[in-house]
């Protein structure tokens, strides 16, 4: 019998994350093309609630591994649970949505099981032989890779593949009782720190407003934040701004920061060093605001304004406010 296709589901507050719905969307497409079953796996201290929700999005079966020991994410307990399920049911492919957690888990388990892993997948041909397209050199190049054995683990980039939608049916939820080994707990989570943030992270944002060297001083980011507030956007920064200590490294977009692909990316006072451009080049629409008409950023933007960002950005903010009423 042909082997199943699975999606790994990350839950937050009892609900599947958007990237996980994208993972299940892609897995569903693959399962449909091959005429095989679609499975979903939810792991966590409150996996049951998210599993009941995921069951509506088209899988044939949902495995819910719930255990108080899985409250805080830790690599090895999660790898134990998912690994045991993969060994028991032998899926051909497991699709993960890209996140720090998913990359961490997929890497550990791929090494353990000798699985074929491709990360950050942005394209997939799956009707015949499975071929994945993934960026390398932060997206300056892409590779098409084939796989030499199963299972295949894929982590897919957010905002690339459409998310699954509820299909009117509800799949069976199979409860799984994890069996751990002592060594799964070599690492102890002492504390979880959730920063007070009014805004989404750049990796999860649909819109990002970024500021670079042209911001001149950290306090000037207030004008970026005002525009971001109007747009419901995340605030990003170039490497120059982060290295100057103006913004936290977690905001950095670029080859040594985060590689993002929002619907709209607004670059303010960013000249467009290649190491920044590769970090945002997969954005659907790019806007540049810069006073230097020769800045490289204008060559890669969809829309640009040549002008002083300290005048232009507040004017744009006001226009957005007016339009949104």
């Amino acid at each position: 019998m042909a082997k199943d296709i699975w999606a790994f589901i990350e839950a937050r507050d009892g609900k599947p994350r958007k990237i996980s719905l994208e993972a299940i969307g892609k897995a569903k497409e693959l399962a449909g093309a091959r005429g095989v079953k679609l499975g979903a796996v939810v792991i966590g201290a409150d996996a049951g609630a998210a599993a009941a929700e995921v069951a509506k999005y088209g899988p044939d079966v949902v495995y819910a591994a719930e255990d108080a020991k899985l409250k805080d994410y830790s690599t090895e307990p999660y790898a134990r649970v998912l690994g045991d399920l993969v060994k028991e049911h032998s899926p051909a492919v497991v699709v993960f949505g890209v996140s720090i957690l998913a990359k961490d888990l997929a890497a550990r388990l791929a090494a353990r099981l000798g699985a074929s892993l491709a990360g950050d997948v942005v394209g997939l041909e799956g009707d015949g032989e499975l071929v994945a397209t993934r960026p390398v050199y932060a997206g300056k190049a892409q590779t098409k890779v084939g796989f030499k054995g199963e299972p295949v683990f894929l982590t897919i980039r957010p905002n690339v593949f459409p998310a699954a939608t509820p299909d009117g049916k509800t799949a069976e939820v199979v409860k799984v009782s994890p069996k751990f080994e002592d060594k799964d707990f070599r690492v102890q989570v002492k504390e979880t720190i959730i920063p007070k943030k009014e805004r989404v992270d750049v990796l999860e944002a649909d819109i990002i407003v970024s500021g670079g060297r042209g911001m001149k001083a950290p306090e000037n980011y207030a004008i970026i934040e005002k525009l971001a507030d109007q747009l419901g956007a995340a605030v990003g920064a170039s490497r120059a701004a982060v290295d100057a200590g103006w913004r936290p490294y977690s905001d950095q977009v670029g080859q040594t920061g985060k590689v993002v692909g929002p619907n709209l990316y607004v670059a303010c006072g960013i000249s467009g060093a290649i190491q920044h451009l590769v970090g945002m080049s997969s954005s659907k629409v790019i806007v540049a605001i810069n006073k230097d008409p020769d800045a490289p950023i204008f060559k890669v933007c969809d829309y640009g304004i040549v002008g002083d960002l300290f005048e232009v950005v507040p004017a744009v903010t006001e226009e957005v406010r007016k339009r949104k009423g």
Partner: protein
Amino acid sequence: MKVAVLVKHVPDTETRIQVKPGDKKINEEGVTYIISPFDEFAMEEALLLRERLGDVQITAVALGPQKATEALRTCLALGADDAILVSDPAFEGADAYVTAKALAAALKGGNYDLILAGKQAVDDDAAYVGTAVAEFLDLPVINLVTKLEVNKAAGTAVAARDLDGYSQVIEVKLPAVFTAQKGLNNPRLPALMGIMKAKKKEIRTLNAQALGLAPNELGAEGAKVEVKEMFVPSKARKNKVLTGAPAETAPELVKLLAEEAKVL
């Protein structure tokens, strides 16, 4: 204490990457190579550990062609005590899985208390090797570390690491593998004295045979993933650049975003 630092020799992040049609790798002509930036954080952390704890022996380890000795020479100049180059023509076609296998074999038996690496190399961006090395050596791994404190007497480490929109403080008994995230430290540059001293330090080369790896574990044969094609993607952009007074350009931009691009 013994600390191993895994480094990779990669094209400079400022490099424009080119691929000749039909090739499965980049055109290396005119490309300058550096230590992968996240590995620099790992190397710096090893040096800081020595400054804090005193007796710390640092071994830099790289897998790559002979040219990768340049990265190791830089580590020696920064203060590594010795270095190992894992190199063999048989690694041609190796993927991250094979690379991790070979590095684990090179580290095995070295009694390292900590193995430090970058969170990912900025060439293949796989974010895999550090974790896989940990798995092959049956060690815990803590990825994306932004803070690391070692308690030598207790044989433990406490690390802060990034997760999705939050972070964790983690305690682990050593030995363990840690991968470095930006924010961990600010890497120093090698001093002239260090560069002079590095010239006298030894770089050992280990080939596949020395590592005890079978031919079917190496290169393309051992790889789990095969690169079939490499290309430079291109995306056409509209390039509508507006000039003039903000009172005119700002409304025009917002109109275009709402009505043409439909992103507002």
